Structures are given as structure tokens and as C-alpha cells.
């Protein structure tokens, strides 16, 4: 019986007579009373007598953990140069102690944490190497993606159309409501804030220029890419990562299927198709939001808004935003798949890589947007 509804507290005392030291134990020596039992053992004062007898006859209940404590006591007394006997055991308890005798945990040493400057340097080095390996892994996936795309071009049958469609449905159609809502709000906020300051100069109407250019060129695509990184990128990492944890990826390899062809290509392709569509939806929704706020807050009627918008933006403005979308999608998809394939056996690593996938994707999306800005500025668009 290990657990009892009512426990008798454990007890112990040392009696010395005629050169024999007797340690009398009583009460419950079970897992529930174990910390009390350990405290009693540390509080006992042992004499120097050579002969020691541990009297376990008074123990009401004992289990493996209690027996271990008694066993440990015996060990430490013997180590101190005494001869120790355990008495008062019935058959069952004897066999329990015999079992314990055969299985001995190693000597306990408290854990020590080492801190040194070398440890810090080592970690930094490892992180740098990690970044380098990450870049290599991305190039690796990109290269094999190129190979697969080339195969698909020559053998269109190898393209998994249904898989692409399913992924497109998940990452595009499913994302439309949230992307539209978010962009609507952003468009409205940009117009309201812009209007608030421009009104002081009597330049209310320029809100339309501000919102139109800002949304179409930058905000629409960036926010959509960030939303997609959080929504689909994390899903890709988690899917591929859990497939790795359950050896499904290994099964694919063994069957002779290419992971890039079966898992990576459909996802990245679907994402590259989805992001321009979502960006367009986002553009429309934010212009709509901007128009509504202009009408309600700045008294610009829809007709005037549209007329001004027509003057402010051109097809080029829209295309500058849309052309970035597939590249953003490629980055989000690549990072998601690379991180997913890096997942090791534990749930902890799945969580870490999913987080890393989203963080890296969002960071790189912004970096790439900056590169595009430099590029467009230098070619004069």
C-alpha cells in the first residue's frame, strides 16, 4: 500500500545500550510522508558505536521510496565505518529490500551551473553558424524547388494540381475575410490620421493621394504578407514539423517520393498564387475604408474621392505593390518549409521552429520590401 487516506507520521529515535546502537523506526515510510521521513533521518544524532541495528519492525507501511531512505541510511552508516543490520522485516519487506539491493541508483552529485566568458563566446559562435546553415538550407530548398519546377515544366503530370488547389483554398480563400477586415481598418485609420493633420493646412483632399499611394505601393502588400506569414507560414511549419516528428517525411523518402515535390512545391506555388490575390483584395478593402472615412470625417463625397484617386494613382502604382507579392510569398513559404524540416523529435522544438518561422518570415518580408523600394527608386518608378 503506497498511499493511505490517513498517514501516521514517520518517527525515529536512537537508543544505545551495551555497545549496540539501535535506530528504531516507526510510522509510515511511504512516498506521502517521505519528506518528513528524510527530515527525521537528518535530525538523528548517531553515536560512534561500531555495531548498529536498524529496527524496521515498528514501520506500519513502507514502499520502494521509503525503503530507499532506509537503504540510504544504512549505506551512509556503513560508509562511516559501522556494521549495520536491518532487523524486523517480514518476508515481503525482505524481498523489497533485496530488490533494492540489486538496483542501485548512482551516487548523487548536485548539478552545478558553469558560467564563463567562453560559454558566451561559444553560444555566439554557434548562433552565427546557425544563421549560415539556415541560409544554406534555404538555398538547398530553393535549388531543389528549381529542379522540381523544371521537371514539372517538362512533365506537367508531375504537378500535384489537387494538392495545389487544396493549399490555395486554405491559404487564400480562407484568409480573405480577415485580410479584408484588417485592410479596411488600416485604410480608415490612415485616412483619419492623415486627414486630421492635412486639414490644418486646408489640404484635406490630399488624403486621397496619401491613402491611395501608401496603401497600393506599400501597406497593402506588407500587411497581407505579414498576415499570411502568421496564418499560413506557421501552419506549413507545424504541418511539416509534425510530419517529421512522426517519421512521415522519412516514409516519403523511403517510398521514393521527393519531399520538395510532394510537400514544398504545392505549398509555395499556392502561396505565390494566393498572395497577389490577397494583396488585391487588401488594396480594395483599404481604399473602401479610406473612402468611407473621407466621406464621414472629411466631407469628401465618394464621387470627388474617386475623381481625385483617378488623378493620384496610375496602373503603375498598383503594379508596384502587386509585383512584390509573389516574392514575399516565396520567402514566407521557403522559410516555413525550411523551419518545418528542421523540427527534431520534441514538441518543444516544434513550437520553437514554428515561432522562428513566423519571426524570420516577417523580418525578411520587411527587408525585401526595403530592397524593392531601393530598386524602384533607382529605376525611377
Amino acid at each position, binding site marked *: 500500500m503506497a498511499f493511505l487516506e490517513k498517514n501516521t507520521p514517520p518517527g525515529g529515535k536512537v537508543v544505545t545500550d551495551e555497545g549496540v546502537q539501535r535506530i528504531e523506526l516507526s510510522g509510515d515510510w511511504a512516498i506521502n510522508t517521505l*519528506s518528513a521521513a528524510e527530515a527525521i533521518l537528518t535530525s538523528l544524532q548517531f553515536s560512534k558505536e561500531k555495531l548498529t541495528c536498524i529496527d524496521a519492525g515498528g514501520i506500519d507501511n513502507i514502499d520502494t521510496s521509503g525503503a530507499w531512505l532506509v537503504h540510504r541510511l544504512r549505506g551512509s552508516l556503513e560508509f562511516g565505518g559501522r556494521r549495520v543490520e536491518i532487523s524486523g522485516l517480514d518476508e515481503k519487506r525482505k524481498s*523489497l529490500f533485496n530488490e533494492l539491493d540489486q538496483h*542501485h541508483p548512482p551516487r*548523487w552529485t548536485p548539478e552545478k551551473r558553469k558560467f564563463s566568458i567562453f560559454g558566451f563566446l561559444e553560444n555566439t559562435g554557434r548562433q552565427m553558424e546557425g544563421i549560415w546553415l539556415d541560409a544554406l538550407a534555404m538555398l538547398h530548398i530553393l535549388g531543389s524547388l528549381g529542379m522540381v519546377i523544371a521537371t514539372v515544366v517538362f512533365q506537367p503530370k508531375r504537378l500535384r494540381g489537387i494538392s495545389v488547389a487544396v493549399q490555395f483554398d486554405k491559404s487564400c480563400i480562407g484568409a480573405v475575410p480577415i485580410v479584408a477586415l484588417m485592410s479596411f481598418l488600416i485604410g480608415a485609420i490612415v485616412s483619419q490620421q492623415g486627414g486630421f493633420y492635412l486639414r490644418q493646412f486646408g489640404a484635406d483632399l490630399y488624403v486621397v493621394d496619401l491613402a491611395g499611394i501608401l496603401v497600393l505601393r506599400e501597406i497593402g502588400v506588407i500587411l497581407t504578407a505579414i498576415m499570411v506569414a502568421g496564418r499560413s507560414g506557421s501552419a506549413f511549419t507545424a504541418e511539416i514539423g509534425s510530419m517529421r516528428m512522426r517519421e512521415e517525411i522519412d516514409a516519403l523518402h523511403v517510398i521514393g517520393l521527393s519531399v520538395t515535390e510532394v510537400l514544398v512545391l504545392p505549398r509555395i506555388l499556392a502561396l505565390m498564387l494566393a498572395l497577389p490575390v490577397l494583396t488585391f483584395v487588401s488594396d480594395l478593402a483599404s481604399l473602401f475604408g479610406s473612402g468611407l472615412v473621407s466621406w464621414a470625417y472629411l466631407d469628401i463625397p465618394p464621387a470627388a474621392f474617386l475623381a481625385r484617386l483617378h488623378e493620384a494613382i496610375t496602373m503603375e502604382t498598383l503594379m508596384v505593390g502587386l509585383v512584390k507579392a509573389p516574392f514575399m510569398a516565396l520567402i514566407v513559404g521557403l522559410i516555413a518549409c525550411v523551419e518545418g524540416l528542421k523540427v527534431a523529435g520534441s514538441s518543444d522544438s516544434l513550437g520553437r521552429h514554428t515561432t522562428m518561422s513566423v519571426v524570420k518570415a516577417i523580418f525578411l518580408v520587411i527587408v525585401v520590401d526595403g530592397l524593392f523600394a531601393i530598386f524602384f527608386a533607382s529605376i525611377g518608378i
Partner: protein
Amino acid sequence: MSEQFAEDQKVHGVPSIEHDGDILLSARGVTVGFGPKIILQDLDLDVRKGEILGFVGGSGTGKSVLMRAILGLTPKRTGTIKVFGYDLAKASEQERKTVERRWGVLFQQGALFSSLTVKQNIQVPMREHLNLSPRLMDELAGLKLELVGLPQDAADKFPSELSGGMVKRASLARALALDPDLVFLDEPTSGLDPIGAAAFDKLIANLSETLGLTVYMVTHDLDSLHSICDRIAVLGEKRVLVIGTIDEMMKNEHPWVMSYFRGERALRRF
């Protein structure tokens, strides 16, 4: 034929008397189903204190479902299940906690926490329910590891670095962490080599003998059924078909029981 089975059930069957103190787990009229499919219907079962009960049944007959229903993981439609005299469906938080401290579970896939090392896994129940010194917890974890036959260097490994058999053992060590009164083992010896399986059987029999451990063991291992099980329950036709000792099983006339215990594979043992 069916009267014959009904007869069997009466002879070695489920005792219908309301339990005395010697019955640790009792299930009465348990029905479990998913959607329109009924898995278990009106199932009665008693597990006596200190016995090793082996549970057999064809694949998909609901052995694991019954175990999960007893543990409260799968909801049951009707019936009562009492563990240590507590009906878990009606138990208070405190009572449930008491019961959870007294049982240990070995899941079929091990279910070790993958982000913790083996040692930390074994210490999880200790940390949760008890207030022990770090030294004592480390020593107890080491002792349990030894007891289930794992090498000490496994203590600091993560579950993903262990072989299938080692995962089983580590998981048993975790199930035994609090020295439970009742352990549920879901196919403990599957995936172990015959020597390891025999050692496992011996360990369980030993613990049962020295500590009065009650074991509820779902297994297909005919060797464990023969060597350590005090009683065997056969699950089939959505209920406990028969329950009794191995000798009674060998004499049973039900076709499934016959083909299980006296089939080609079973007889090859002799």
C-alpha cells in the same frame, strides 16, 4: 451456442454482489460509443486488490477505449465506474486528485513528455504532488530507472533519442514514480525483445508481490498471460465475454477464446 456463453459468464463471470473492500475498481453497466457506433455496451468488470488482471480482445474491440473510459479520458454514455471506491464522474476536485496519486498509467505509445528528459519525466508526478528535496527526487528517479532496467545514461536523454523498448521502460518508471496502488499498462511488452519482455513480466510480478500492486494490463503477449496474470478478461461482443484464470480460459468453448488461447500460435509455445 449463445446459452453456453451466458452459462460461462455465470460460472466464472463477473460477481454481481456489491463490492467489499477487496475490489479496487468496479465498472457497472458501462456504455461507450462514438456517434452512432457503440463500442462497449452494459459492461461490468471488477478488479480485485493485489491481482494482475490481463485484458485481451481482438483489435478494435475497445480494450483501449475501456481503459480510457476508466481513466476518465473518454466520456461514457451510461454506467458507473468506481476506482478506490470513488465515482470519478461525481468526485470532487480533491477526491480526483487523491485517485490520480494512487494510480499510474503506461500508455501504448509511452506518452513521455518530449520536451523533458527521462529523469524529468519521472519526476513530473513527484514535483506535482509532493514536496521532496532535489537530492531525494534525483535518487528516486535513478532508482526507478534501475528498477525498470534502463541504463543510467538514459536519465538525461530526451524521449526522441530512445529506442521503442526504452520508451516503454521509461514510461513504466514514470507510472511507478509515486508507488501507485493500481497501474494500468497498455500493451507493455509489445515491441520488446523476448528477454526484455520476460524481465518486464518478472518486474511487474515482483512489484505486485512486494508492494501489493494491482495491475490492469492490456496485452497480447501469451507469455505474460500464462506466466504472471492471476486472472484474464476477454473483451468481445461489446462486453466482458469471460473472466477467469488461464486454466479456465484454456477450457472455454467460445470460438474466439478457443482460437486465441488454443490457436496455432498459442499451441506452438508448447
